[in-house]
């Protein structure tokens, strides 16, 4: 179930990226693509009946925990993701300043 949703989201994210000419909507599509990958990693670390990995020494043996490693990696990936998202947005606003538009076709027209 999770993995099928991940595959569908990957496809939809790329489809948004490809079908629109608007640069901001393209970046939103890229964000969905990224979120699908985050979901994939978190789903891999899931254990049925597992609790969040807050470990107490006395419960170590009789308690299942979900895997902390994918969580750490995805946690930092989200924060780095928003930083690069902001860089992309600032570049888009710079493009808008130069060309007066953020439509890909119109920018190509002006470059000819």
């Amino acid at each position, binding site marked *: 179930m999770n993995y099928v949703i991940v595959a569908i989201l990957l496809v939809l994210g790329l489809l948004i990226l490809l*079908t629109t000419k608007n640069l901001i909507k393209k970046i939103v599509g890229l964000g969905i693509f990224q979120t699908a990958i985050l979901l994939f990693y978190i789903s891999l670390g899931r254990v049925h009946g597992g609790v969040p990995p807050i470990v107490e020494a006395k419960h170590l043996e009789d308690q299942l925990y979900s895997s902390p490693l994918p969580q750490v990696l995805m946690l930092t990936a989200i924060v780095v993701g928003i930083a690069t998202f902001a860089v992309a947005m*600032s570049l888009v606003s710079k493009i808008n300043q130069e060309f007066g538009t953020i439509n890909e076709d119109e920018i190509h027209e002006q470059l000819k």
Partner: protein
Amino acid sequence: MIELGLSLDVILESFFLLLLPILAVAILFSENMAAIAIMSCVFSMVMAVIYLLLAAPDVAMTESAIGAAISTAILIKSMQLTQSRILSDKFFCLANIISFFALLFFGAMMIYGFADLPDYGQGSAPVNSYISKDYIKNTPSEIGIASSVAAILASYRGFDTLGETLVIMVAGLVVYFVMNIERPVQVDLLDEKAEAVYENKIWMTDYIRTMLLPVSLILAFYIQVHGEISPGGGFQAGSVLSSIFIFYFVVADIKSINFHKMIKTLLKLSFVGFLIYLLMAIYTAVIGGYFLEYYAITGTLLGHKIGIFIIEIGVGITVFSVMLMIFLLFEYKLQSKPITRST
């Protein structure tokens, strides 16, 4: 009781998972930019709930602060900056149909490949077997803190986190230079319509100042300080704190704020956060341990606690200042832009 709990879990999970493709399709066919911003916000909220159901509260916390609050704010600000409201994309041209079928093939291959993965939720899967098991088993005895996520983030893989903090700092710097704010601001007079909005904003600001801001600040500090024994830490607290301030600036009386000075201060603050981390790492090496080996600080498990606490503060400062600075840069750019009015 356990049976019931498990099935409820699965039902909730499936419900929220099914919402995601629906929202993505809605974004795909939407032509209204404001609607796209709101739907991507809802997408992140649903995602945060799913992370919580998948027993990843740290990730859920970060996603709800960053995905739902900060990225939506930046998205809306850049939409205002580029003055894009309505799109006019053609969906049914030849190129789109070709790319749709190519992606359909790609998706089918992905699902075919995923079939070879270990069954979902299996405790014996390779992800949960080797290093993850070690981390969980050794966190109480080697690091002495309860939160395994914080232990991996700050201690086992502290060097990764150092690099990631640097990436965030550099991204903030890049946005600062791309936005190029070294120009005088043109403050224009408010017209009547804007005045009415302005009045409304003041009322909302008062509400936020008296009710929401103090409570949210305490929440953010709790997440920061309590990160070692509960879900939380520098990344989460930094993003929660900056999302509160962004919320404040969205509704606040913005004309009376000296943006230029504030942005400069936040830029310096992001360097300070990174330097706290780096100096901590160098300090442990100088006093006789390895690079980032907090054990050397006191020679006991207490050293780990002190080290993790300090570098989490460094991470928190960097994340907070970079996120807030990026938002303020967009806001400043919007203010200084000569506004073309339709009236």
